[in-house]
């Protein structure tokens, strides 16, 4: 019993009724109110079996443990640093999760990380009051020197990464730039200036067309045209979207 009122890939708006009946389970931006499932945000519908998901097309970043993000050191504290992460909240990087060697009491922490430094790090803890702890222990965590910092809507980041990281791999290989993608919507790139611009334009394309299909092909054509190099036909680039 019950009825789904929307179809896959349909765009829905807040309050729109997606299904009636108790048979379905809401996830993503979909929620249940009594016997109806509705959407909380403007987004794309994904229906599979009994699960109705709404992928939001805009909205704030919600940090989760394990997310890799980019932040900027904003203050040096007694036993750690305060980090700006482009959100309503600042995060804390405790010294024990940032430095491997022994740091004595009263040591000058700014010689490890100073105000203005960019870091690629992991979210280690989020409390219900949005106190966020970061860690640099992961193998990929590091300070980012030079380069360019770009920002796109956090909800579009999965599209920048792509299935099995296919999109970001294509962007890296085509432009020869280093690319670090933060789940908080910040992306750091570093390469030859002309290629950095090509990459920035490609990212803008993804930001604008994230909700469409056939995007990977279009980005591939764009990169080929801008760099003058054909992109190899590896399996990972053949995947649609």
């Amino acid at each position, binding site marked *: 019993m019950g009825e789904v009122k929307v179809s896959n890939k349909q*765009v829905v*708006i*807040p*309050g*729109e*009724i997606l299904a009636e009946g108790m048979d379905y389970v809401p996830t993503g*931006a979909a*929620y249940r*109110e009594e016997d109806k499932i*509705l959407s*909380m*945000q*403007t987004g794309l519908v994904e229906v599979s079996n009994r699960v109705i998901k709404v992928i*939001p*097309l*805009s*909205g*704030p970043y*919600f940090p989760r443990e394990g997310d890799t993000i980019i932040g900027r050191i904003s203050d040096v504290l007694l036993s750690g640093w305060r980090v700006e992460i482009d*959100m*309503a*909240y600042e995060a804390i990087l405790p010294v024990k999760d940032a430095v491997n060697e022994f740091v004595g009491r009263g040591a000058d922490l700014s010689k490890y990380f100073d105000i203005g430094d960019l870091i690629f790090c992991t979210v280690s803890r989020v409390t*219900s*009051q*949005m106190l966020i702890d970061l860690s640099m222990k992961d193998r990929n965590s590091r300070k980012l020197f030079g380069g360019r910092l770009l920002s796109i809507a956090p*909800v579009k980041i999965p599209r920048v990464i792509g299935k099995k990281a296919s999109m970001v791999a294509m962007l890296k290989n085509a432009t020869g730039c280093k690319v670090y993608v933060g789940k908080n919507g910040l992306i750091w790139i570093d390469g030859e200036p002309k290629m950095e611009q090509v990459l920035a334009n490609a990212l803008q394309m993804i930001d604008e*067309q994230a*909700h*469409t299909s*056939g995007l990977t*092909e*279009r980005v591939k*054509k*764009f990169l080929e*045209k801008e760099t003058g190099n054909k992109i190899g036909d590896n399996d990972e680039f053949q995947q649609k979207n």
Partner: protein
Amino acid sequence: MMSFSKRTDGRSLTDLRPMEAKVGVIDKADGSAYFKIGNTAAYAAVYGPKQMLPRFMQDPRRGVLRCSYSMMPFSGMGERVRPGQNRRAKEISMVTEKALLPVVDIEKFPNSVVDVFIELPQTDAGSRCAGITAAALALADAGIPMKDMVSSVACGKIDDKLLVDLSYEEEAFDGEVCDIPFAFMHNSGKITLLQGDGVVDTDSLLKLFDMAKEAAGKVYEVQKNALLEKYKVEGDLDADQ
């Protein structure tokens, strides 16, 4: 003194003025919208969730919704309106916030603020309704979680006639006039704004509830189309860029 017989712009008693709406009109904002009904136009811009300042206004249990309504200097039908908020604007800011709060869900963002700025470049009555309608659209554009959409329109009584969407000329009619702004949650039909300016009898008021609800439904259709329009895939994206 003439009695009120028909509307000068040729509308029927239940016709709204022509409406238009567009989202994403202010790139820098997290979400934005433009809504026009007749000659009354409103822009709304949403910023947030972001850090709430001044700090003493922070609420540790949930995010705060802060609305600001402002008419531009030569927007009104009477004298020049001084820039900045006057007492009327402060009141409208408050009722706008109360009209939107029941649907906005920012409990997951304690100590933050979602700022909504409403500016009207041109008004011809129904300005607070246009403001609320634009604000709801801008919040949906920003991806702020909302349980439902809110649509707003004013109805009223002139002499013995009940009408929908009064113009400035009608509000200023030299006789018995009552202007009643409404705002409705779309799914539940619950009222989130109800004010009255004038004298009206109970019977008429009860009839006006039904007329207003139907009129708000027409406003909702315009809002929904504006949001869907943003994500419509026009033409062939694959055409040579």
